[in-house]
């Protein structure tokens, strides 16, 4: 049976109807048509479904949409400000970190959560923060370089 829930998606407060078995991933892709969030495995292993909930990365394939009630969800579509890309998005382009792009939304969102907390992470810290996302193109080196390049410069 469908039930209404209220949640914030990319800074917009909205009411949606969800079934108990609807995952947050299904709500985002099928319900809201925000298809930047991907499904790889559907089982928590690949990380391509990662979105931020209250600023923290979670696997949206393993979270019920009902559990997003009252919370704030950020998907890759929520990062750019108008025509201006988020510094991480720009950096991924500049560094050639996007190959097929399937993992990029999850990589960028995981990196955002990291940089919001630790603006100058070590390479080890970056690797740990991204360890839950698989890049089937093997673009890891450039992804790490892109995160490093997007880290705000010390003034």
């Amino acid at each position, binding site marked *: 049976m469908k039930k209404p829930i209220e949640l914030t998606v990319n800074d917009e407060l909205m009411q949606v109807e969800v079934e108990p078995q609807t995952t947050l991933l299904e709500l985002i892709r099928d319900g809201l048509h925000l298809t930047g969030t991907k499904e790889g495995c*559907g*089982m928590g292993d690949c990380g391509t479904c990662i979105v931020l909930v209250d600023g923290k990365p979670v696997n949206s394939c393993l979270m019920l949409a009902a559990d997003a009630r009252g919370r704030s969800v950020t998907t890759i579509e929520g990062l750019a400000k108008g025509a201006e890309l988020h510094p991480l998005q720009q950096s991924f382009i500049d560094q050639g970190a996007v190959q097929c792009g399937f993992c990029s939304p999850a990589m960028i969102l995981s990196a955002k959560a990291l940089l919001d907390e630790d603006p100058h992470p070590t390479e080890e810290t970056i690797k740990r923060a991204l360890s*839950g996302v698989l890049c089937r193109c093997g673009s890891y080196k450039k992804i790490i370089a892109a995160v490093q390049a997007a880290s705000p410069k010390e003034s």
Partner: protein
Amino acid sequence: MKRLKPFAYREPKTLREAIRILVGEGPRAATLAGGTDLLVRMKQGVVTPSLLVNLKRIKGLDRIQRPKAGGLSIGTLSTIAALERSALVAKRYPVLAQAAGFLGSPSIRQLATLGGNVGRSSPAADMVPSLVVLKASVIAEGASGKREIPLDTFFKGPGQNALAPAEIITAIVVPDAAPSSGAAYVRLGRREGMDCALVGVAASLTLDGAGSVAEARLAMASCGPVPLRARGAEAFLSGGGLAEERLREAARLAAGETSPISDMRACADYRREMVEVLAYRALAAAVQTDRKAR
């Protein structure tokens, strides 16, 4: 898309209500915490609960606090990420923060709860060996009231535990560690992130005034049908010193006390050999954390 089959669903606001719903539905109801285990098994079709009772709208179950009587009480819904960063945990039981850092990936740790790790009762559960060496207990509540179950007697087989039907874990409690003691968890996966433990060993050592071992505890993940204690190795260590040969001999004994399985991740012989390596490392690391603490 991998979808979940429909199920009835409740979000009780109190523990009492949750228990009442579980009792009413019977054995096909399941408790939902973080969902990182249950939802995966539902998608695989391994389990088909008729009703999910989501605990996450019950207030206060995610608290990590120090009770007046001492020790630490970790609410069942505390996430693995919360344990990894809790200042209280880092100060009193660093081994738990260390073990938390091994579980899954950062995004899995945001969802996964401690109660779910214990409640699933997998022999591979990464939080359990450290909890066992710290002498933790499960606080459970059901229709007939509240009880405390020592973790040592909680696990009954792969996926099986001492919980009665409709009983809910509310917290995991850990007593204060002895003054001169240290603990460490070491684990081996096929890769560093995102794989369940091929073998995991937690060790704790408590010293007496003369510097000999007053008490040793060794607990192992993925080494048998339940998380195992290496009681022979523990007995061997107690009363003696911390010389390297003694730790190595204890590790050899611990490996002999395991009954691992062969599966796609590793064969039993390899696991047993790795127990010896990891048990030594865990003991050596426990000695180090003790020295640091003093």
